[in-house]
């Protein structure tokens, strides 16, 4: 695989969008839920990552709504984005498996995964 590994915010945003199209604030909330409250994206970071993902063709605009006179743009995963997320998941799973095996040898609980 020649692709550069996704950074955590990008991985989590793609994961958030894998379920259903989301608007900006929805993505922030979903990422917080997925990461068990560990990752709280700020608006600046969110839109920097969304812009990069959009430029790379991994996400696209699904629809736009105006709620309380404010624009809400919903983003969804593209086919390319879904494949990229799948590849990244395989890569991370492989790393987790190796880490788990080594931790089991040390008798640490992290190996139970």
């Amino acid at each position: 695989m020649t692709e550069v590994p996704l950074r955590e915010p990008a991985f989590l945003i793609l994961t958030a969008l894998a379920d259903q199209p989301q608007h900006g604030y929805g993505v922030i909330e979903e990422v917080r839920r997925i990461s068990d409250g560990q990752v709280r994206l700020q608006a600046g970071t969110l839109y920097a990552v969304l812009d990069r993902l959009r430029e790379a063709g991994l996400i696209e605009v699904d629809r736009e709504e105006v709620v309380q006179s404010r624009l809400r743009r919903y983003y969804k995963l593209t086919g390319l984005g879904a494949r990229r997320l799948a590849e990244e998941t395989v890569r991370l799973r492989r790393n987790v498996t190796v880490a788990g095996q080594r931790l089991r040898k040390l008798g640490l609980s992290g190996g139970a995964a």
Partner: protein
Amino acid sequence: MTLETRYRRLLAWYPAEHRARYADEMLGVLMDGSSPGQRYPRLRESLDLLTTATWRRLGQARAGFTDSRWADASAVLGVLATILLCGKAVRPISSALAYHIAFYGYAPYQVHWSLTLRAALWAGVTVAVLGGWRRIAAPAAWFVVCTDAVLLLARHPDQRLDPLTWWATMLEAIAAVLLTASSGPRRGLRLLARRGLVLAAVAAVVEALAPVIEPFLAQDWPPPPAPAPLPEFYFFASLRQTVVSGLALGTYLAVAALIAWSINTTDPVVRRRAVIVAAPLAAALAIVQLSVDEGFSGLVYVLPPPLSGTAGWAALLTVPPFLAALGLLLLRRRERVGPSGVPPV
């Protein structure tokens, strides 16, 4: 001031293009994430917005300088600089020949080998540029710069730290940088087209041959009618020197006008960038000429150079950067992307 206004002020740090695409949406996200009664943006989100906006601007600036339009401008200026430097390299030879003929009535058997070498090397670079040989032109220009630096060190071993001694070599280095950063001399030739190239060639010929007239106007030739009264001698000497200086200044202005005309023949998008690069260089050249004794042949020979010492350095360090910054600002305003995504014509 409301929370929304404060958020809008923070979002104003983003470049216009980013604001046009995301600002309303981001404002909605920020307002959705705010607590009831909150009056100020949180510190963490403010820092996040300012940091990402700054990175966005830096990224845009980098992308702006690496786009092909700047490489095209560099190609145009690289071709022009090479042709002019070829003329400049021939200039001392034509001057030496003219003085020798004026004094002795015949051409010398040879001129100093270093002058001939430099002229031959720049002629070689010019041939490479006019032939459109990208892989040869830039390395050849750098070779000439290195050769010239070695010759200069050998000739002025006591002036190694004086940058004003190096200004001619710096000009050559700038030409080499332009050729290196360009999209290739072939592209530069195509952008200049025949008209632009003819104008540049005329400028180089004017630059190379203008000193031929000089010996006939110089204060040492012809000698003042003897026995001339002393005030009359100084009057004639001063008059002749002023004419010589005027000739030198006139040559610079004529060359500058021809090069400006040549740049004017190119596509407007390339032309604007070429002017932004060329204007600070031209200003720096003029400042150096007004700062050294031999600049513009010592315009009024009884007075020191107009920008001698600290004034010269201050002008050199402030005027060219100011012109570059002003040019970039005007370019940005001129080519700002509108809401439709299309830059104004």
